[in-house]
């Protein structure tokens, strides 16, 4: 915590002349305006995206009204559209991804920073970075041709059999085992968010001052206690940031999900059933959406996704603020 800001200004003392001063001032002005316009560009782009989305979705929102959010029906033939199933699918697949992804990611990060022998550390870190570099279409194809058949043959039948008859879980894991569906999409997503959460949490774990950890060890703490009582509380803000980064990726991921989710605009009790997400619906249907209302409904879905990611960010922000306030006490 005791970082001292060091300013690197070491111009030779004897060279300060009027022209040099002017030159410096000019350069500073260029830098100031240049960086400011870069920042404004981002705001303009963001504003443009929002304006385009609102304009594009106007037709569908004015036709269906608030019912757009609460209707499960999605019928391109009769042109009745509702966003409930894609919203449900988006949230549920991301939830599954987080439930699987967070413990594994944090586990990897703890292992890398606290327990891992240095030589192994480098290869594991590289492997995780490579995982982040795989294009999502590859995940999609792998999911469709490798993961889905594997789940269909070996995992889903077991889940269905084990939970059959159990009150809530029985419905959650009801058959038939299609291989593709919400569950598979969630698993693919959990693999995709792993590198994001892992690399952020690993980086913040490394910011824990060694003196703190060493003091704890000196007092006789076990590794578990050091992680639980020193590392995690010290880095909670960063860890939540990493999780949110992963969640953002999971909510918006398109290609990989499109391949394995089954694109059914239905809300089924079972997570093994096919479903759809907002981004998968858009990717699947945009090219062939001929009528204005159909296109507009798909753009409305885009707007919704925008709002959902924005809400997630806002909640993350609030969480962080709260944590900081607690830390200040």
């Amino acid at each position, binding site marked *: 915590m005791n970082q001292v800001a060091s300013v690197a200004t070491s111009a030779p003392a004897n060279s300060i002349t009027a022209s040099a001063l002017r030159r410096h001032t000019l350069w500073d002005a260029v830098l100031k305006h240049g960086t400011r316009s870069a920042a404004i560009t*981002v705001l303009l782009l963001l504003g443009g995206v929002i304006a385009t989305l609102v304009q594009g979705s106007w037709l569908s929102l004015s036709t269906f009204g608030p019912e757009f959010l609460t209707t499960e029906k999605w*019928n391109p033939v*009769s042109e009745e559209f509702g966003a409930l199933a894609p919203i449900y699918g988006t949230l549920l697949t991301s939830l599954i991804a987080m439930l699987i992804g967070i413990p594994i990611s944090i586990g990897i990060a703890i292992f890398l920073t606290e327990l891992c022998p240095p030589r192994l550390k480098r290869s594991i870190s590289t492997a995780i970075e490579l995982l982040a570099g795989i294009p999502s279409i590859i995940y999609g194809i792998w999911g469709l041709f490798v993961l889905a058949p594997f789940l269909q043959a070996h995992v889903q039948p077991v889940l269905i059999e084990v939970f059959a008859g159990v009150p809530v879980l029985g419905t959650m894991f009801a058959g038939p085992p*299609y291989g593709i569906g919400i569950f598979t999409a969630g698993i693919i997503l959990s693999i995709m968010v792993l590198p994001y959460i892992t690399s952020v949490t690993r980086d913040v774990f490394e910011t824990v001052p060694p003196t703190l950890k060493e003091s704890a060890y000196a007092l006789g703490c076990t590794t578990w206690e050091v992680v639980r009582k020193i590392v995690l509380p010290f880095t909670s803000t*960063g860890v939540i940031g990493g999780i949110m980064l992963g969640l*953002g*990726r999971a909510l918006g991921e398109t290609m990989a999900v499109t391949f394995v989710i089954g694109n059914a605009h239905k809300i089924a009790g079972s997570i093994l059933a096919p479903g759809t997400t907002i981004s998968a619906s858009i990717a699947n249907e945009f*090219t*062939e959406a001929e009528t204005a209302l159909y296109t507009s409904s798909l753009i409305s879905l885009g707007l919704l996704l*925008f709002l959902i990611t924005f809400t997630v960010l806002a909640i993350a922000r609030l969480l962080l603020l709260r944590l900081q306030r607690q830390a200040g006490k």
Partner: protein
Amino acid sequence: MRFPRAALLPSLIASLLTIAACSKSTPTATEVAAGDKDISGAGSTFFYPIASKWADTYKKETGIGLNYQSIGSGGGIKQIKAKTVTFGASDKPLSLDELNEAGLIQFPAIIGGVIPVVNLEGVTPGQLVLDGKTLAAIFVGDIKKWDDAAIKALNPDVKLPSADIAIVHRSDGSGTTFLFTDYLSKVDENWKGKVGANSAVEWPTGIGAKGNEGVAGVVKQTAASIGYVEYAYAKQNAMSHVRLTNKAGKVVEPGIASFQAAAANADWAAAPGMNVVLTNAEGETSWPITGAVFVFFHKQPVKPENLTSAIKFFDWAYGKGAAEAIALDYVPMPDAVTALVRQLWKDSLKDAAGQPLYR
């Protein structure tokens, strides 16, 4: 604690927004700035393999290139209406009113067929026979088991398992889905009322897979499943196809002969704007789920010289391109139909001076 708070959040926000923004990118087609005479087209993904094959050969023979973007039929119609391409291509024809409104003509360029495929143990390719009503009842979810009486009645000699039918359909909007659902709507009132025909429909049951390759993949992996794919896909993947009973009540095998029969039996001359969907066609040898790819031209193009190149290209495709079409498991248009199309070009495509662009 300064690091995560100060450095992480802004980058976090940026990444989240990027992710959100990326998922909304829309396909666009821009006219290529290549040579003046180069042809640009956009639309049907079904048309893409043969269009690129033709483009390749045509470029070698004439030096004129074709840039075809397979952005989907809906996209093709939008692009031709926006005049950003010389021709648009769609699996679904437009009505005469829609054509006139946009100042377009349409003509069929190539024929293809859609084949139901199954994965049933002990059933060899082509062994299973279905009719339209039974197929509709399966896909609507009324027939749930393979040993249903309706299927048994059509297949007295086939040993059918008592397994649940797993239905696989396209998840993405597609001309293949349009032909399939259009056929089911024509033969089954129940399907027409409950589901209807479109490039994407509200499926009553089953799972969606992306693209022909997705449907083929899922059908192959799932026991007791049924799906539908384009003919070329079924053939190249050696899938277990289904024979269908056509409108004339005859059981037909899918293939170039039965697709061409469907096209030849259609009354193209009488249909306004050549608006013909070949599903459930007349004729004893016609395959019932056949469809053509329709190409759209502007009657008064912005650049007549580009349209002239496009007309020459399709003229060539009807003649010399036919053999290449067959090699890729497409079906060339019958001569009677190409004669009609050439007449249409002569009659309706004029330059600014009123001179016909095709002679």
